[in-house]
């Protein structure tokens, strides 16, 4: 029940959208970003080490070299654990809620679950990002005091930033499930 389609992100990087239908009211949508490139990783590492070696040749202190190794290791750990997002997924369960998960390259997962009672709608928005206009999907949260108001906007797929064609795909599948909740007697 899983299908996978290829799209491009806003910056032109290829991404894959995987759709899994668990049941009539439960659907999982996952956007997988590009894998970590060995080439860019080794380029960054060798740049740091070359700079450290240059500094070492100037001041002849071997502390510089060990510091460079240390910095590379710490930087790699921080990059994998906090920065590089491997996969962002959206689990929509009708009548229960929407779960947003982003999995980091190190395996760490950060999850937020939004109950259906709080979800007002899922919409596509425009935003100005750097010098261009991009589209993004977001969940509008219901304001508890005011039934018409929106208390918060939760943006989705923040790190992969898919283009509009991919977003429309996700939007349609979300709305199919959200519709069920509204048409139900």
């Amino acid at each position, binding site marked *: 029940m899983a299908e996978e389609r290829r799209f491009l992100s806003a910056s032109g990087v290829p991404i894959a959208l995987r759709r899994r239908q*668990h*049941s*009539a*009211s*439960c659907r*999982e949508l996952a956007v997988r970003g590009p894998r970590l490139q060995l080439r860019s990783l080794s380029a960054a590492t060798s740049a740091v080490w070359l700079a450290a070696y240059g500094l070492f040749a100037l001041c002849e202190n071997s502390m510089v070299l060990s510091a460079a190794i240390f910095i590379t290791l710490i930087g790699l750990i921080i990059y994998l654990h906090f920065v590089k997002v491997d996969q962002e997924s959206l*689990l929509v*369960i*009708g*009548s*229960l809620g929407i*779960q947003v*998960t982003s999995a980091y390259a190190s395996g760490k997962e950060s*999850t*937020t*679950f939004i*109950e*259906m*009672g*709080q979800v*007002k*709608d899922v*919409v*596509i*928005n*425009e*935003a*100005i*990002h*750097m010098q261009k206009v991009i589209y*993004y999907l*977001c969940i509008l949260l219901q304001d508890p005091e005011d*039934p*018409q108001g*929106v208390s918060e*906007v939760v*943006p989705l797929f*923040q790190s992969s930033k898919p283009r509009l064609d991919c977003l429309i795909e996700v*939007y349609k599948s979300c*709305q199919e499930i959200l519709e*069920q*909740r*509204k048409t*139900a*007697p």
Partner: protein
Amino acid sequence: MDLKDFRHLMNRDCMSIGVHPCRVTAMVLKVFFPSCCSSADSGILIGRWISEQNSAVILAVVHFPFIPVQVKQYLGEVQRVTKVSVSVLGSWSNSKQEKEESLSEFLEDLGTIFCHEPWIQISKEGDSKFWSCSILQKHSKNPQEEEIILVYYDQRKVMLSHLHPPLDTAGQRAEDASKLSAIFDTVARSQVLFMTDRYDEGPIKLTHWQSDGVEASIIVELLKQASVPGCMLLTFLLSLLSGICRSRLLKFWPLSFLWSKLSTCEQLGHRLQHLQVISSNKKAQNQNQLMRKANIFVSLLIDVALGILLMSWLYRKNRIGHLADTLIPVADHVAEELQDLLQWLMGAPAGLKMNRALDQVLGRFFLYHIHLWISYIHLLSPFIEMILWYVGLSACLGLTVALCILSDIIELLTFHIYCFYVYGARLYCLKIYGLSSLWRLFRGKKWNVLRQRVDSCSYDLDQLFIGTLLFTILLFLLPTTALYYLVFTLLRLLVVIVQGLIHLLVDLIDSLPLYSLILRLCRSYRLAAGVKFRVLEQQDGKPLRLLMQINPLSYGGVVQTYRLPTYSCYPRDSWASLCKKLFLGELIYPWKHKGDKQN
């Protein structure tokens, strides 16, 4: 750029569908099933039916055989104790072999004895992971097929965890808040149900999560028994101590002034309050107060442990003596450096040409002051070791107290720098104010005190002459004073930064919620920020299976929620007003205490 910033740019007209104001719950039935009951023998399911959410929270399984009347009695009793409307929700059959026809009929008949709408039937065949689940509705108007979601939950974790942010139990009922908190609340309140023992020979056999019995250790019991009189004794001593502190003898002018200036006294007072909170025999009202007490207790313990560690380090190998021996030369050295600095200022510092007469006068004045200071230090030097020895004993009250004493000692030893700063600032301030008022005179204006504004005014010729003359003199003398002011302000700022760092450390130890952090590290389910679901394997025709796990609060969230309030020195001014005050030569004190009046 954060996408959240663009919520105003929402383009709703083309993309979003119309928002329906009314919301109707979908006909999806959710069954929250405790994962510990999945291997239970056949029986009936008891739990709570939450009709507005169309979900059933199953708490336990009652095994065959039972007498229906006794079950009803038992449920009534449970309801009375827990205030949760527990009822029989359906049947549970766990058949090792193939399904038997007679059993299924029997299970349906059970539905007529315990009338509940809807009647849930869950059956597990063999070791299959996929259970079949059906709903019987007798008086249903719309006999449509309902979708069922089976949600497994860990009964123990859900019972022990606390959802954040915590609810106001007085103001709002848990039912109003949200679906999940209702479920958490139901499980937590039916704790009494889980206390019954597995081997208890009662009329009813239940399966649910249960503790393996409370570990009884003699030491723990003794400690529990001893803690009550211990707390009472502590409370008595503390009330005595605070009574002495509040007595009128210590309220006279010089003493009260001294207390307010010493940070050690502030810290001791703060710790006294903490001890009073811990030793009070009032039971903690809710989770937050309990956590606060535990946090204070752990922070106090860690503080004292660190203090004793420091003390044991200080008093070994005569380190106090070494410290005292180095302290006096350091103070001497600082004074010498200051003398050199003054000599340099009295010449032509950095090639600037100063007013020679004023420069000499100021330089000599400060030199004399340093001379006084050095003789004072030398007078004190024989006693320094003894003083340090006794002061070091106070480290057993905690590391924070020791740090506060260190800060006070620094303050006392750099008193001359503070004096220089005050002299320089006063002189500079006087000049700035004189110059500004004379500048107004220069332009034919004056400050009207009554109306708080600048009025124009016609001066006599000789008034103007004298004013202009004074203005010129002040203007030409300004660079010399400004230089002295600048140098001493920089020195003062250096001392203030060192003290500020010490106070930051003290604040960190005071306010860090260590108990909550340890709880988050070891029992992460206790502090829940919410839940997360995992979709388990599916099979066609069988209900959707989800696993509900607890999403722990992040470390930042823990610190934010449970941070202990400090007596705290918070910055008195913003950076801009600080710079303005520095420029105008007003005296700056970097922080103020909460109790201080605004002056």
